[in-house]
């Protein structure tokens, strides 16, 4: 193992590998990624990997649009295999008047930013998704450039590009401590040895607050379990991702034909457990059979869970921790850290390398939680 590095990234999820790639792309040298298990072992390997640009806050529209355009060209830019971007669109189902009102505002905003989302009547939505019981919705929105990716292939593609640019990845390497001298990080300790460095990038996802404790920083983040399940495989009949805030579900039909679906359940543990919730399949089945009754005939095959890392405004934190020079954090993405990854990489490279900002990350610093300038995003889980 190397004993020194310019930058050490903790965490080999989509955030860590994307940040690593962008750092090297913009000229950083000697960057190391440390991953406790294997790449994608955390939330990244558990997630739905959906991407939508249909948000209610401009900052999220801008960052997801950046990401979407990156993913469209990822095979070329990363040069390391396909990321399986299935751009079948994303349909948001609307079932309350209040939601409809908000959605109309969102569409105006999205269109003004070059996101070509449209409002659909229930009938139009039903034509696109015949499985849908359209009597359950008031309207829907659709953006054809949204969709979902393979989280595994995307992670590998970033990692390979990172290595090709000279980066080093140590898997099965657990970070156990961080040395700080005179308010500045000096080394990262692992079960495989110590690496001296002046820059540490905390990209540990659901474990980001644990890593922060190693430098005695308290981040306003917590992690919450989210469940997901997959059904048996069926001929492909559903192209777009489906999601509804008011009806509480998201769903996609994976390329293999299985329907992958999740929802937000009450009373989820916040102690980093990712065991399966035995109530989830029942709640999920009720939700989905209410809206897409025909899917009742499908059998559930497996369920699993992962961590959402949550910040107070459900938006990411991209910043250097003020008390500890050289200790950076990128976490708190709630349920959309996968789609943000290219933006995360770009933003953190700009912050760490002192480049002029091309993305509005200045609004995503830690100080917003004390100043009260929170991101107001009406359309987030």
């Amino acid at each position, binding site marked *: 193992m190397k004993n020194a590095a310019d930058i050490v990234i903790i965490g080999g999820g989509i955030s860590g590998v994307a940040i690593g790639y962008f750092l090297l792309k913009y000229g950083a040298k000697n960057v190391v990624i440390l991953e406790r298990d294997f790449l994608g*072992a955390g939330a990244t*390997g558990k997630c739905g990997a959906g991407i939508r640009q249909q948000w209610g806050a401009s900052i999220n529209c801008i960052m997801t649009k950046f990401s979407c355009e990156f993913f469209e060209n990822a095979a070329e830019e990363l040069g390391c295999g396909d990321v399986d971007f299935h751009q079948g669109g994303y349909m948001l189902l609307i079932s309350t008047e209040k939601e409809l009102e908000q959605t109309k505002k969102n569409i105006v905003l999205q269109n003004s930013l070059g996101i070509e989302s449209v409002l659909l009547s229930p009938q139009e939505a039903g034509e696109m998704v015949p499985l849908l019981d359209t009597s359950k919705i008031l309207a829907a929105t659709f953006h054809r450039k949204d969709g979902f990716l393979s989280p*595994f292939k995307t992670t590998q593609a970033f990692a390979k590009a990172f290595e090709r640019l000279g980066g080093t990845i140590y898997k099965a390497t657990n970070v156990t401590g961080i040395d700080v001298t005179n308010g500045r990080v000096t080394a990262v300790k692992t079960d495989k040895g110590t690496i001296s460095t002046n820059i540490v990038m905390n990209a540990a996802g659901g474990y980001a607050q644990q890593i922060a404790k190693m430098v005695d920083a308290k981040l306003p983040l917590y992690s919450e379990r989210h469940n997901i399940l997959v059904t048996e495989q069926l001929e492909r009949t559903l192209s777009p991702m489906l999601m509804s805030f008011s009806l509480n579900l998201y769903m996609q039909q994976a390329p*293999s034909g299985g329907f992958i679906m999740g929802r937000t359940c009450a009373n989820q543990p916040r102690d980093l457990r990712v065991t399966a919730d035995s109530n989830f399949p029942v709640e999920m089945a009720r939700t989905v059979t*209410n809206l897409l009754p025909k899917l*009742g*005939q499908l*059998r559930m095959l497996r369920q699993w869970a992962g961590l959402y890392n949550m910040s107070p405004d459900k938006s990411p934190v991209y910043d250097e921790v003020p008390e500890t020079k050289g200790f950076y954090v990128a976490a708190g993405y709630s349920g959309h850290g996968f789609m943000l990854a290219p933006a995360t990489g770009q933003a953190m490279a700009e912050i760490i390398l002192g480049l002029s900002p091309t993305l509005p990350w200045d609004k995503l610093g830690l100080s917003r939680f004390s100043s009260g300038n929170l991101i107001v995003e009406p359309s987030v889980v």
Partner: protein
Amino acid sequence: MLERSGIPEQAQIDCVFPAEERLEKGPVAVIECFEKIPCNPCAQSCPKSAILPFVDINDRPVIDDELCVGCNACIKKCPGLAIMVVEYSGEKALIKLPHEFKPLPEKGQIVNALNRAGEPVSDAEVVRVIAGKVSVVSIAVDRHLIKTVRGFSFKEKPEIPEKNMGNLELNNTNELDGIVCRCNDLTLGDIRKMISDGYTTIDELKQLARVGMGPCQGRSCIPIILGELSRYLETPIKDLLPTNFRPVVTSVKLSDLAEHDEERTSV
């Protein structure tokens, strides 16, 4: 009994065996699949749709004897080697068996016919050998043994080919072509390539190649892959990271789940 000894009882065999009149008409498949497991390659393999479609992946196969023409297709697809084809031929019965070991017997060779307990019951002549990923060896025994014979062994210990790797199918000229994961069609070569590329845990192989996620849920592939990982990492299998087995134990219809009405109990 089957659960303890691994040997089916006569009543179970009678249940899956075609009637005498059907046996007189020509070759027919016999599927000795007695356990409900999530596995369905047989149903999808039949060109005559004689193996009835599964309603549930855990269903046991049901074969329509009248549609079956005894073509051997399903023999090669069953990961459990639970299928054979039987046929009367004059005074003899032909038993067509799946075979995954090296070496293959030769046509005309006299071998021991074995019953389901693996005991020799008579001599048998090898009448045909169809080599493949799973080979099919036809042996001829006396008519009355049609329900008795389920295997064969060599009269003399054959010379073992140099590279013997346990239960992998080795009758291929190139062992790297041997199928490790039948559900997703991955060969030993595919698996070794991924391992040497640095994907050295079952979970990584699961994510990237979907091993263990098909209908067999890892029953056929995971033991072989663990062996490969153990050899590559020079680590005993017991020290390798276990993979997660995920609920549910058996697949359940969403509509049945939706009707479940119990108080919320655990987190």
